[in-house]
């Protein structure tokens, strides 16, 4: 069972993605018309306060690496991955608009695994994305990179995949949004498991987007149009469902910290809601 313990209003118009580090700092991205990336940290009274907020375009996904860097997928003049220090300083970026390996057309979710590899999902852009007077066809795929942006592999054949997560064992979890399912891959990009289907009953999805995995391998999915979050074990067995229309309004993003606290980007309500799991603290 999850218990609401906090709520953080964002400067960002509508936060769609969220990540949290081991110090409890929150990083939220907005993919909306007035997008951006924002960091929240604990203030003197333990309440979260905005530390910095960068207007860097549509931030589709955000991930943290063990090296202490903030990776985000950005759609602005170009479609790319940008890397920041946690203090907000820009480090470097990689990627460009296109359909080739290592390029992006509408990058969405991003995740980092236990070895520092980066996974980037791409939403559909069919028929094409215009870039420098050329039309680029691509999307609907998942790509793996090293932290410097060198392409490793890709898997395609999805319907607007939006959320991606990875665990310490380098398994990759993808929310295949318009197929209403979750897909799990091994570190070589081979499909291990797939579960979920369209619906509103527990265990089913309606436009799943954000996805996160905790240190015990449980999977959390932001089930957007059902206004809820669902928790599964690593085999896809439903463990918990929480939230409703009163609690969330189209929650798009989700993250879990090392204490198994769950951070939900309650997108249309412009806030991050924080939950603790009863009985999990000692495990």
């Amino acid at each position, binding site marked *: 069972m999850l218990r609401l313990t*906090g*709520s953080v*209003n964002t400067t960002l*118009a*509508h936060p*769609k993605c969220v990540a949290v580090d081991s110090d409890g700092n929150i990083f939220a991205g*907005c*993919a*909306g*018309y*007035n997008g951006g990336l924002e960091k929240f940290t604990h203030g003197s009274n333990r309440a979260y306060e905005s530390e910095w907020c960068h207007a860097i375009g*549509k931030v589709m996904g955000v991930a943290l690496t063990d090296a202490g860097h903030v990776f985000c997928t950005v*759609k602005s003049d170009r479609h790319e991955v940008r890397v920041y220090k946690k203090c907000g300083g820009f480090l470097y970026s990689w990627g460009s608009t296109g359909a080739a390996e290592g390029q992006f057309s*509408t990058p*969405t979710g991003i995740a980092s695994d236990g070895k520092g590899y980066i996974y980037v999902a791409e*939403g*559909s*852009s*069919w*028929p094409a994305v215009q870039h420098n007077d050329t039309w680029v066809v691509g999307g609907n795929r998942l790509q793996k990179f090293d932290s410097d942006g060198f392409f490793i592999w890709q898997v395609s054949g999805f*319907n*607007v995949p*939006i959320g991606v997560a990875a665990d310490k064992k380098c398994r990759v979890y993808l929310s295949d*949004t*318009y*197929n*209403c399912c979750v897909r799990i891959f091994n570190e070589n990009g081979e499909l291990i498991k797939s579960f979920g*289907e*369209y*619906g*509103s009953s527990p265990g089913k999805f*309606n*436009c799943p*987007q954000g996805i996160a995995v905790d240190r015990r391998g449980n999977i959390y999915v932001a089930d*957007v*149009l059902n206004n809820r979050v669902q928790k599964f074990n690593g085999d896809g067995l439903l463990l918990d469902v929480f939230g409703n*229309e009163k609690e969330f*309004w*189209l929650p*798009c993003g989700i993250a879990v910290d090392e204490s198994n606290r769950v951070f939900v980007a309650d*997108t*249309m309500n412009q806030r991050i809601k924080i939950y603790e799991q009863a009985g999990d603290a000692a495990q």
Partner: protein
Amino acid sequence: MTLDKKIIGIAEEMGACHCGFADISPIYSKWPDSFDECSHLPAALTTGISIGVLEDVDMLMNLPHTDNDYRTKHYAEKIDLALKICGNIAALVNESGFTAHLLSHPPIKKATGLYKGIAVLAGLGWVGKNRLFVSPANGCHVALGAVLTDAPLPVFNGRQMENRCGNCTRCMDICPVHAYQTEFFGEANGLDGFRTDLCSVVRGVINPTGWGVCGLCVKACPIGKGRGGTPFVKQQIENDFVSECAAAGDFNNDGVTDITVGPYWYEGPDFIVRHEIFAAEKFDRHTYSKTTQPCFAHDFNGDGFADVFCIERNPGPGGTYVFQGWEKDADGCSGWRGVIYKNPAQKESKWIRHVVLDNIANEAPVWGDINKDGRPELIYSSPEHYGYAAYDPANPYGAWTFFPVSENMHFYLASGAGYGDITGNGTNDLIGPSGWWENPGGEKYPWNFHPQKFSENAAQMYVFDIDGDGLNDILTVWHCHGYGLVWHKQTRDKDGKINWQKHEIFPADPFEKTTAENLSSMPRVSQLHSLEIADINGDGINDIIVGKRFWAHGEFGDPEPEVPAEIYWLEIIRERDGVRFIPHLVDGDSGAGTQITAVDLNNDGKINIFTSNKKGVFIHR
């Protein structure tokens, strides 16, 4: 019956949620190619009839993504209904000797904008940033149909409804494929800045046949959120202007709540059988009624039959109730009189009129047990003092005693009154637009005054804990003949001194004064002359009911007399770090008078809303 009434009758009977008439000449001139479809018609059809059918939001949002046929399962069903209604209307128009052309579905190129354009020109809503037609009542959940005709219909000639999207970009921000490239405050006919090709990706994914929507931009719209149309059903029980007040009580002692508007009472729970309390008149909308101010129901003599307390004024020259200023009338009364109509208790006698108060000199007096003696008092201002009047239970129909809470203010004229425990000491304090009076306890008068501008011109004012912090706050309209709904948060400094923070709920500036910075996504409604609180959604927290006093000062007296007379309830949602208000339209064509009564009229556990004004008498169930 006139043709327009017949058309509206067909629309309502067949289940339309709106029907309006528009002069569509602007569309001809701006987008002539929209009318390719009509090029074969013999004459320019310059009148558009807009029909809307409410979509079932739950169904719309829960369509299967993999094998659905959105068109046939739901959307087409609603479109077909709109087309059927339009077909019947077109047939009626033809039978009446005029030309009628039914716009087709699926629409010709740009005709989607044509449907929206006609609805906008008919004053029924606006086109939102999601490029969908948005009605204040039903959000973007309306399937549109339209008929073009040359019939002489009463087209909407008021100002088109302003775009209420304000600075909200939820629909654009939620789109997974970023179909919204730019903001949109453009013309109804356009899809400027919207990438239909990207949106069609989603459609294609959901349904390979090419139809289907993910619905995120619809569900992200706060207008109509969570309901897909108003859940209230309107019952109009008078079509004439008889009063602007509304109260509830048991007038026939049968245990069922009845209602009164002053001259009449209506038997609950159906409110069809009407009884006269005093000689009823049908007033001209350009003037006022005999009972322009609130009325109240109370069983003064304890016989089980509620009496009616009215605030009346003598008619002016010619017997009309035009505003006469505040000079004393022939009977020496400055302002209104407080009058009890004693219930005959089903005997053959009439309701006996007892004048119990003179010189009621402020608008929107309120009714409540301010001194906690178990009996209601009237809280109002005399020409000199603000205070309250109480009756003697041994002689309730005799003259009441006035208790002057304020100093002599030498004709304190204001609109608005209220009471409640501001200090938290268990006694009721008094509030007015310009401040509050602290109850010292006992029989000491006057009370200590704390100046604070709560309102420029108030209606009913309420004291209750809005944000759940344990301190009572104040709710009031900002200007009952202008705009604005505000609440004042009570705070205490370290010494316990009470301070106030003003927060706007509905914008207080008129539309003309808005800038890019102060655009609000909340409704901007003028003439909010009546305010009520009640727990509409059953969450244990009082919600807000507020309505436009239709033609408060007649046809030209106040801002926007011609725009729809709306009544809203606002859901109060307390959150960890504050409170927010979600507006829900109760009805878009009734409004309120000077009083809203919100009680459970039929014992079903749900609050009903009851109003009376220059459009008639309404119950929203």
